């Protein structure tokens, strides 16, 4: 599957790779929750390195400057062109911010953009963002890291959904749902010589095992987002790349019985055997987490793993104390490793006399029930909150508003306050206290219990090098060779 396409850039490392994946794809970075291809089409204002640290490097933005009171930022855009050939202008950023502020049109960006009051084009390449209140720098940088450059005219959902319109290293060549996505090198990419590859083809697989078999038999050069169980077997023959990944979280729904009982939630929280899950479900890949912060997050506090970790006796005692029901149903998307995770939790809970029933569902049904707050509990993935712990309040179960599916109108005020404090702690000391408080309330309310990080896993033939993921777990092919 490797042919040498005639790259327009004419680089020495012209080449083509084929990657297999099981993911669905869309092209609107404001909406998409898939992550394998989006970074190839779009340039963001800044980049973070792939090593887990948060040192911003200029990308779409050439430079930026915070107002001393942290009440605004002025961004100078790099001189670059979109795939369409049009130049990247400040007006495009202003239009993009407008859209990001509309919660109806941009869920991946709406919450992170909440701090922005307005955007103004100072000149064609300079934009000024005014904040609603003084905002910590990390939060703004995280926002810049997440903000894609899109031509204003194309920046509407109906259009972007099907046609990427960015300025990223690759352009869309061909897309056939369920079959393939072909990307060609963008010759006008702002970094000369990059990307190295001329062409990247994604092949879509319905079944993960089919994907791995195809990879092993040489049909594709790489397999993306494969299950950990394949790791051991593939390790000696192929290159394995672990991405930054996400977190696996156990959620309990506080709006309906039995988990409207806080003590019961706390009891169950202590019955999660992270070691065994890491060993048997993750095959040793990933790290334990407790309060939905990745180890790279400034709010990550390993102490909770010891003080509130797996302890069936403590769990039993709390269960006794809660006096509530001893039975619950867990929703989960069928065919995912979360099923096995739940099975382990189930077996442990059984030992302390709590019966957890597992009801695997197909994804759409699961989401439907989740949105309607009908799931009693579930195991689900949660994205990385980068260096701003307040970004934890992004997902449906973590919102501070009534739309929070695990609390609805009863979101604990302490949580709301803790998130607000984290989002406005401008000084490092203030941040420290704010993050600790946030951790405290998360542990106390115990509705979202971290289990482990789940890095994304890629298997590649040896020829392919330089494939990395950014902290959001987006695949970055700019440096990839093959």
């Amino acid at each position, binding site marked *: 599957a490797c042919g040498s396409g005639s790259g327009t850039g004419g680089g020495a490392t012209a080449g083509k790779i084929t990657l*297999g994946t099981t993911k*669905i794809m*869309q092209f609107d970075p404001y*909406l998409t*929750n898939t992550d394998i291809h989006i970074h190839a089409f779009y340039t963001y204002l800044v980049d973070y390195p792939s090593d887990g640290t948060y040192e911003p490097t200029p990308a779409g933005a050439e430079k930026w400057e915070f107002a001393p009171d942290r009440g605004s930022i002025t961004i100078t855009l790099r001189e670059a062109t979109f795939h369409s050939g049009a130049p990247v202008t400040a007006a495009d950023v202003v239009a993009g911010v407008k859209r990001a502020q509309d*919660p*109806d*049109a*941009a*869920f*991946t960006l*709406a919450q992170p953009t909440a701090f922005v009051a307005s955007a103004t084009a100072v000149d064609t390449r300079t934009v000024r963002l005014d904040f609603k209140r003084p905002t910590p720098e990390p939060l703004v940088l995280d926002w810049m890291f997440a903000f894609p450059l899109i031509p204003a005219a194309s920046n509407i*959902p*109906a259009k972007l*959904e*099907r046609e990427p319109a960015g300025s990223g290293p690759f352009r869309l060549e061909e*897309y*056939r*749902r*369920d*079959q393939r996505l072909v990307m060609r090198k963008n010759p006008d990419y702002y970094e000369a010589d990059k990307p190295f590859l001329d062409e990247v083809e994604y*092949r*879509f*697989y*319905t*079944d993960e*095992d*089919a*994907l791995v*078999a*195809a990879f*092993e*038999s*040489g*049909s594709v050069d790489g397999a993306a987002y494969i299950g950990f169980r394949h790791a051991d077997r593939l390790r000696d023959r192929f290159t394995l790349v672990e991405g930054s990944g996400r977190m696996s979280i156990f959620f309990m729904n506080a709006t309906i019985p039995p988990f409207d009982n806080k003590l019961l939630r706390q009891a169950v929280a202590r019955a999660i055997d992270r070691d065994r899950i890491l060993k048997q479900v993750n095959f040793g890949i990933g790290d334990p987490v407790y309060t939905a912060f990745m180890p790279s997050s400034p709010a990550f506090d390993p102490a909770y793993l010891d003080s509130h970790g797996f302890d069936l006796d403590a769990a039993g005692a709390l269960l006794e104390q809660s006096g509530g029901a001893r039975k619950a149903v867990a929703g989960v998307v069928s065919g995912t490793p979360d099923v096995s995770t739940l099975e382990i939790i189930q077996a442990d809970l059984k030992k302390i006399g709590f019966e957890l029933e597992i009801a695997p569902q*197909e*994804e*759409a*049904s*699961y*989401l*439907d*029930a*989740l*949105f309607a707050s009908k799931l009693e509990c579930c195991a*689900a*993935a949660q*994205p990385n909150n980068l260096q701003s712990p307040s970004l934890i309040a*992004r*997902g*449906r179960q973590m*919102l501070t508003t009534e*739309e929070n599916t695990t609390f609805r109108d009863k979101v604990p005020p302490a949580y709301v306050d803790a998130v607000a404090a984290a989002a406005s702690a401008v000084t490092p000391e203030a941040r420290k206290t704010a993050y600790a408080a946030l951790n405290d309330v998360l542990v106390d309310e115990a509705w979202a219990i971290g289990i482990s990080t789940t890095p994304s896993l890629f298997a590649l033939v040896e020829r392919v090098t330089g494939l990395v993921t950014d902290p959001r777990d987006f695949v970055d092919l700019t440096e990839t060779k093959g």
Partner: protein
Amino acid sequence: MYGHLVRRLLQFAVVLLLGSVAVWGFTFALPGDPATVLLGPNATAAELAATRARLGLDESFAGQYLSWVGHAVTGDLGASYYSGRPVVSELLDRIPATVQLAGVAMFLTLVIAVPVGITVALRPYSVAGRVLQGYLTAGLAVPTFWLGLLLIIVLAVQLRWLPASSDYVPLWEDPGGALTATILPAVAIAVHTSSVTARFLATSLGEVMGKDYIRTARAKGVPERDVIRRHALRNASLPTVTIVGLQLGTFLGGTVVIEAVFNYPGLGRLLYTAIGERDYALVQGGVLFVVATFLLLNLLVDVFYAVLDPRIRLT
């Protein structure tokens, strides 16, 4: 005969209409909708509502259905919620692949079923007969997906003789490539269907061998080989034609599991993912297309049957 044909066509229309209502009812009964899948787990209620409005999902059932039927009769089945492409083009994309796989699988089915069926019918107690009867049972018992997996692991992953996943390569462009791509899924399917077909053939051949006209042929002095070829097989093939037709119909409707196992870009997989994604337009158009294909094929089988059987043709 012609009246019969026209009646069958009318029935066809009725079933199609019934089918369209049923499919619509079912898609609306499915929990979740395209918006939920499109936006994923972290979408807010407002975003969901906005997306629904944009996709036209907030109209009434009857309104949507009627406008859909109105367009459908002109051949416009709407557009996929995901790709935005017309459902018809999405389907047309997959049809050649499906037809090719169905063709190869059916060819294999017949190549296996006919000799096996004949041997089992005529020499049930011979060594070959007994062995082949074992095949008939095994063919039914082995789940197709399991067989597919084994084939992949042994032939593709271990021996690397054939590719594990099968892309669609048009037969006329690259016959060798097309064959290597379809042979594994076709075998996985044919093991099951050939054992079913062979049983039918064996049963009807067994029955036909007891018929009076076979005795007549023998009494005329026709050698046994010709009795079987000229008299028995022709009559025994009649009921088998129906089965083969039905099977071909199911092949064309998509062999979901096998397509998933071999990642073959066929109709079945398309519909399977479309259901998962709640791509209503595609599900509705696709299922209707599959139903129509199946019914049309049955109609063809009817006609073919009539051609084979003068008792039907001439009344």
